[in-house]
């Protein structure tokens, strides 16, 4: 047994230098295919867009510079993770003694929901493309050259999504727009979830007067007309990406805070929280280590829903001209720009609109899948 293992092992390690091959040889088909596809995709980008990559490496623009670093890091991470993972599963001899956490159980259940898994892939692919936009984009998304010659060109191999009234390549603009729209969605939700979770947990855990005061503040924030606040702020400040992230994040944490408070109220009654006090854990650690992890499931679901909502909100604001301002592309202001030319050049609004719809749909499906996977009640329904 020992001897026959050894050459096998060397082969596997060598194979996993090309990520995923080791897993495929070990029979872990799913993981192997994923790693292999990811690695091949990244290498293809590197090879096919070599010039753009070299430019981006030494680019003074932060987005391009980051994008090139990201590509290299992603490749390195894929290779080293693949190596590490193959070695680990060889070492443990397939017998992993560690138990399955509730989240691992949920992950397994999630994997059975094909629609949600596809949605997850779509989302991951979108973010990958958005991160690599400066390398992938064939043209400059902002610069205007020869507008008279290239204005409103229909989609073709050279301009996949056609061109707009200034002759800019819409495919490139859509890629850059993706990085703007998607990062606003994700980061605004991160802010909202972080504030909401901490706020709701504190209110629910301490209860009494603290709870009352904190929740009345939430009522006030909810009652505040966010739309007019934004109109006003845009009038005062220049609306840019960071500004939108902060504003959207700071105005949408209230829902999370409310339901986290409710979760905490019920978790607080459970005996292990009393147990945590009985072993002398300070309140701060009880909230962080014992309450919040148990309240995480609904947070994940609502976060997924919120990202879709945030992307839509950004698009709506940009469409109205109070979000991201041209020439910086975002899906919202691209659609807005396209509506004037809808009869002459349908493609200007069509492609960003489609991308927007796909993204929001994918996030909603993901949220559905997460809810089914994390909610014990839906599991029960299967058996009834």
């Amino acid at each position: 047994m020992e001897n026959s293992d050894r050459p096998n092992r060397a082969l596997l390690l060598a194979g996993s230098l090309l990520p995923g091959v080791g897993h495929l040889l070990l029979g872990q088909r799913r993981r192997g295919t994923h790693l292999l596809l990811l690695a091949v995709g990244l290498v293809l980008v590197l090879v096919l867009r070599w010039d753009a990559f070299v430019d981006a490496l030494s680019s003074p623009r932060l987005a391009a510079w980051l994008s090139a670093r990201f590509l290299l890091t992603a490749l390195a991470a894929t290779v080293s993770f693949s190596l590490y993972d193959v070695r680990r599963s060889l070492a443990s001899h397939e017998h992993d003694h560690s138990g399955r956490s509730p989240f691992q159980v949920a992950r397994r259940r999630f994997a059975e929901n094909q629609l949600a898994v596809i949605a997850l892939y779509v989302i991951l692919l979108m973010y990958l493309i958005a991160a690599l936009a400066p390398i992938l984009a064939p043209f400059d998304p902002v610069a205007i050259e020869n507008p008279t010659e290239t204005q409103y060109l229909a989609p073709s191999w050279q301009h996949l999504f056609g061109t707009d009234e200034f002759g800019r390549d819409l495919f490139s603009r859509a890629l850059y727009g993706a990085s703007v729209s998607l990062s606003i969605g994700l980061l605004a939700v991160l802010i909202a979830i972080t504030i909401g979770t901490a706020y709701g947990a504190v209110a629910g855990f301490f209860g009494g007067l603290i709870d009352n005061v904190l929740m009345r503040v939430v009522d006030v924030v909810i009652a505040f007309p966010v739309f007019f606040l934004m109109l006003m702020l845009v009038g005062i400040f220049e609306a840019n990406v960071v500004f939108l992230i902060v504003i959207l994040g700071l105005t949408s944490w209230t829902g999370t805070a409310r339901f986290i408070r409710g979760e905490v109220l019920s978790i607080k009654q459970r005996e292990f929280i009393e147990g945590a006090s009985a072993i002398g854990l300070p309140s701060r650690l009880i909230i962080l280590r014992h309450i919040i992890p148990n309240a995480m499931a609904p947070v994940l679901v609502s976060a997924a829903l919120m990202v879709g909502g945030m992307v839509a909100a950004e698009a709506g604001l940009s469409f109205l001209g109070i979000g991201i301002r041209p020439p910086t592309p975002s899906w919202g202001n691209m659609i807005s720009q396209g509506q004037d030319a809808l009869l002459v050049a349908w493609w200007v609004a069509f492609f960003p609109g489609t991308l927007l719809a796909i993204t929001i749909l994918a996030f909603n499906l993901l949220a559905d899948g997460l809810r089914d996977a994390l909610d014990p009640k839906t599991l029960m329904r299967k058996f009834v």
Partner: protein
Amino acid sequence: MLLSVENLTTYFYLHEGILQAVDGLSFTVAERETVALVGESGCGKTIVALSIMNLVSQPGRIVNGKVLFDGEDLLQISPERLRQIRGGAIGLVFQEPGAALNPVFTVGHQISEVLQLHRGLTKREAESEAVRLLGDTGIPDPERRYKAYPFELSGGMRQRAVIAIATCTRPRLLIADEPTTALDVTVQADILDLLRHLQDQYQMAILLISHDLGVVAGMADRVLVMYTGKAMELAAVRDVYRDPRHPYSQGLLRSIPRLGEGRGELRRGIPGAVPDLLQLPQGCTFHPRCPIGDSSCQAEFPPLLELSHERLCACYKVNG
């Protein structure tokens, strides 16, 4: 004296009125001694445990009394000092081992947490120590169980894990609140053996809370019989079992079935039911159910008086 509870009074302020869960209770626990709190469900045993740890939460409040642990009043000291004692010098074992463990962390993680908090171990040290402690509690294959989540363990193993958490800091007092009630009989015996073994090893005192007189007989040195939040009788375990004085203690002991007893013979338990704690009878709260009680018992609750050496009883009829 390791633990000295004096005139402990815990009330719950409900919409319906004031519920006197624990009312003027006093007792002591010496080093390495095992004292049992005995009584029917709802007589305030668990609230005594929570009050000692100062863990009573709204709408309950400790309105009076002292809990002197090694001379410090746990109801008066600073929150930081209290946290050091909780889980440090005093461990607490809960009735329902499934509920006492956090479902989203491994059992080992939860032991390590206490070791890091109270013994200042590093993560790695805590991990190997936790595996060792799990092994000490008789859990087979402790390395593997370390990584198990609570729902993957049986009830008995969970209770062992909870005991490991409660004793990992070598506490001087272990409060065990119905430690075997949720377990089946064979496992009960193992858990009691484990508690006795750990008591010897760590020289702990144990405050055992139970409604199971069999469990108490095998474990305790002294017994405090409680009824409606008050002490009825406090004596050495042998005295209570051989010669219970208080009519309530007598009733409790009579309700244990014995081997060799004729089939179909009715148990002469205690007539009636535990009164509503919001509407306690005047005077001695037991007198409506008491075989020897009469109108003289309705005036005031009888004082807990010493009958003979180390034997206290709260009954007008017995005390004369």
